[in-house]
């Protein structure tokens, strides 16, 4: 029978090629697929397009999460809502070393969900009339200005769950969900790391956040850092 469970993060991401478009779950450091990110860093993949809320996170003098991928110049383009989260991104951006597509956070979530849900486009008021609406179609609906937004897609989604069963049903904890369930729906291949991998039937089927159909590969994360005391 089909086995979605991989032995290591490295094995789970082994076919990610240079130039890949990758969605990374997480907000700040909550719910980031830290083991998959580390494996990708070690693999040396280059020319990546990153779709993520922020390009890593700064705590004190250190930067975590996706930041090392940016610092090492592995990222061609960032699509997200909060690039100011790291100094490293600003330095690269100011030096013209990385491209930025800035997307309001709610629109980012909805564009990703749209791809996963077979929605061809949608209208939101968010950003109408601002710099971020430049080049976008507008439409008046019930007397208010909306802009047309299109789906965001990716070759891979790297997501992080609290628990996964062996079928790929995922549950998240606290604010660890954020973009993870949406990205899991939207990418051609979804790779989930989880703190625990349990047998089918161990999760209550009425409390699954991401049904197994959206998950292609599962790996038990090797190491979970805690950043706060």
């Amino acid at each position, binding site marked *: *029978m*089909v086995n979605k469970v991989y032995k290591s993060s490295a094995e789970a991401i082994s076919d990610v090629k240079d130039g890949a478009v990758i969605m990374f779950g997480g907000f700040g450091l909550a719910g980031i697929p830290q083991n998959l990110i580390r494996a990708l860093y070690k693999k040396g993949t280059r020319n990546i397009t990153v779709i993520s809320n922020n390009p890593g996170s700064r705590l004190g003098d250190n930067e975590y999460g996706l930041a090392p991928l940016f610092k090492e110049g592995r990222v061609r383009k960032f699509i997200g809502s909060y690039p100011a989260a790291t100094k490293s991104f600003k330095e690269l951006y100011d030096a013209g070393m990385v491209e930025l597509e800035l997307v309001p956070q709610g629109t980012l979530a909805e564009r990703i969900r749209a791809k996963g*849900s*077979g*929605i061809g486009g949608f209208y939101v008021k968010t950003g109408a009339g601002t710099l971020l609406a430049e080049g976008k179609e507008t439409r008046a609906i019930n007397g208010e200005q909306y802009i047309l937004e299109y789906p965001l897609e990716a070759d891979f989604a790297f997501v992080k769950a609290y628990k996964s069963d062996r*079928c790929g049903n995922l549950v998240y904890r606290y604010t660890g969900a954020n973009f993870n369930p949406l990205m899991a729906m939207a990418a051609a291949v979804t790779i989930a790391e989880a703190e625990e991998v349990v047998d089918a039937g161990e999760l209550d089927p009425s409390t*699954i956040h991401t*049904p197994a*159909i*959206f998950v292609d590969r599962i790996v038990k994360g090797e190491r979970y850092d805690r950043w706060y005391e």
Partner: protein
Amino acid sequence: MTAGMNEKDMARRAAAEIGDGYYVNLGIGMPTLVLDYVPADKLVFFHTENGLLGMGGFAQKGETHPDLVDAAKQPVTCIQGASFFASDISFAMVRGGHIDLAIMGAYQVSEKGDLANWTAPGMLPSIGGAMDIVAGVRRIIVMMTHTTKDGRPKIVKKLTYPVTGYGCVSMIITNLCVLDVTGEGLVLKELAPGVSAHDVINSTGAALIIPEKP
């Protein structure tokens, strides 16, 4: 008619199209028989569009729950590894191209794979999830009797019933045969026991491509 496949034969044939690890939606009626013919060495998740992935089968007396039904509103069970979700997620699976296969009934299928299965003149129009399914599921197999009760072809050159979706059907399994819908037209892929290509041609309202060894 003794020649040809009965409903169970057709369900068995349809089940053979299901691969290991597939996510499959079964239409109301005859397609639900497919549930019984999935080999034990395949892990298949059956999707019901009302919000269940991993339907087990029909619930027996004493194991029913009023909040656990399939898309036909019948009490069902679920397998280990199942999940329940709201209608928007269920149709995200459907429209977003996540479901591998849907097996549906039909009133008519055209030689281009156009499908009519939602309403007919004089009927109360009712659609359920059929249009969403044909718009989004990766592969659609139709499972139906080859002709209407009064012997008229259901496989036609052009639909006369209202369309559910255009060019969406990949394969047609009937009591007489299995047809592939291809860019060149309908290809006779298999004949049911005791049925000749001639029988199929006579019961079909569209041109058929008959390979040398069907």
